[in-house]
């Protein structure tokens, strides 16, 4: 009897009980005590994860008078944009008090050249290593793998010297180029892994057709790279925007990205710290990557996972 009913159900649903049938065959009964316990625990954890964001947001709208009362979790009595205005236009970073807008535009001007440079270099290299029989490709890939692990400090001073001799030290270009250089190994490995799955038939057909390295690259490979490009873009946008160390090391005084301004703001405090200003500045710095995250959440996971070794 039960035998029949199982096979009937399988036939009716059009699938045999294969791989991904969930463990508790989704008892439609509804809510068990365990469900409640799990959901309660997850909700508490989720609230804990939201606390910093909540605190930062509400603080940024408060007046300093209210902050001095010490009720960090309360909503603003008076909602004010004063802190936002101050952080954007007048906050001091070092000796200058031009606000975070300077750093914001610096970050933007670092981001774009760096994205173009790093992604184009890694795409071409990954393509050449994956699909053209370069004899030492294996050795080179191994080297890249090692380079991906190397801590930045070990190459920091030589890179400072190189950027100084090429006269780009202390400019946005230095920060952008160093980002591209440091990302090269990981991005190349990502592209190479993606391209090596391209069927050899496609490649041999393309070779018969024209055989030119660059034509194949631009007419076949680039159009096929959509998915991986998005993943790499997410990875690079977040890591370049959120970087502090490279910006502070190579940006000098004029090429500092937004994170460096923010760090100056929160670490160098003269007199009483205005937390509303600091939190507004923190939020301004966090908004661009958060927007990327909420727009492409699912791909974001792929992005950070793919490039995770970049740390």
């Amino acid at each position, binding site marked *: 009897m039960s035998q029949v009913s199982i096979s009937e159900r399988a036939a009716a649903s059009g699938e045999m009980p294969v791989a991904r049938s969930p*463990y508790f065959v989704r008892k439609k009964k509804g809510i068990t005590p365990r469900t409640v316990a799990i959901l309660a625990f*997850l909700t508490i954890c989720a609230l804990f*994860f939201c606390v910093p964001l909540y605190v930062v947001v509400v603080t940024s709208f408060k007046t300093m008078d209210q902050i001095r009362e010490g009720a960090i979790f309360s909503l603003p009595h008076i909602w004010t944009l004063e802190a936002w205005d101050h952080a954007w236009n007048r906050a001091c970073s070092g000796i200058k008090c031009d606000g975070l807008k300077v750093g914001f535009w610096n970050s933007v001007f670092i981001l774009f050249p760096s994205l173009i440079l790093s992604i184009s270099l890694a795409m071409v290299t990954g393509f050449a290593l994956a699909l053209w029989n370069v004899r030492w490709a294996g050795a080179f890939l191994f080297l890249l793998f090692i380079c991906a692990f190397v801590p930045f400090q070990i190459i920091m001073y030589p890179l400072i010297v190189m950027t100084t001799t090429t006269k780009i030290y202390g400019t946005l270009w230095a920060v952008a180029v160093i980002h591209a250089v440091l990302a090269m190994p990981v991005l190349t490995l990502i592209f190479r892994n993606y391209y090596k799955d391209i069927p050899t038939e496609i490649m041999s057909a393309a070779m018969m057709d024209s055989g030119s390295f660059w034509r194949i690259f631009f007419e076949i490979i680039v159009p096929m790279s959509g998915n991986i490009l998005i993943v790499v873009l997410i990875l690079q946008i977040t890591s370049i925007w959120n970087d502090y160390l490279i910006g502070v090391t190579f940006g000098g005084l004029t090429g500092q990205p937004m994170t460096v301004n*923010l760090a100056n703001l929160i670490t160098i405090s003269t007199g009483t710290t205005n937390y509303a200003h600091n939190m507004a*500045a923190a939020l301004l710095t966090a908004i661009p990557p958060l927007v990327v*995250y909420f727009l492409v959440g699912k791909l974001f996971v792929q992005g950070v996972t793919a490039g995770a070794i970049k740390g």
Partner: protein
Amino acid sequence: MRWSRIAPQLALTPALAVTAVAFIGSIGWTIYLSFTRSRRLPEYGIDWSEWGRQYDRLFRDAGWEISLRNLIVLGLGSALAIVFGFVLAAMIDKEKRGESLFRTVFLYPLAVSLIVTGAAWRWILNPTLGAQSFLRGLGWHVDFNWLAQGDTAMYAIILASVWQSAGFYMALMLAGLKGINSEIWSAAKLDGVPLWRVYLEIIIPMMKFTFITCAILLSLGVIKAYDVVVAMTNGGPGQSTWVPAYFTINALSAKSNLGYASAAAVMMLAITFVVFIPLVALTVWQQRKREAS
């Protein structure tokens, strides 16, 4: 035909040049400098009678010892992110309700810069205006003044880094859990094995690969930890939250001692390889085994 052989090689030259100059060459350069007496400016003569002087000084430096100790503390503390990530992933995977909402909430800190993370937690941990005063106002006598005390400041850094990265490990674990054949669950259920034993004796061993990956990523992050230290404590109070990454950059920028900073950087590289070679070898071995079966 000949062109087709030259073109890819030509296309590879920029990447080769970057690898040779910016990575291999620079590593060699720094290693060389670590044996010199370079201070503010590089000196390229090596005094062979005392070539190891920078390392001698380094190992006798209390700041370096603190840095190493903090590295271990930070490593162990941050490992909580993996544990926490696994627990969250297991619960989300078990109870499919609200999966995407929870995933979104747990992962968002990863999108935020560690400087921002530091700024936020620094504010929450502010003893007079932050969470401590709030909770005391509610009548709970808690002590959250971690940042101002040398022996607890490291906990604050751990708290911030766990908050930032736990969602990431959750995402990796969730992917690992989804890869597990559901028949295992049914079989275990039929046998009446309690759920916690299923996890401990079947699921976790099956996810070895995911755990090793997480361990690699975690240790990499710990060795590189710099931003979060700057944002939370800037190394203080005193030297209590120094880590090797901070020590090295401090030796170069604040002390402007190039030879010393180079020696510390070489030690960082050594630590990286000591941690990674076994872990990476283990991963490769696991992968081979998996492919073979």
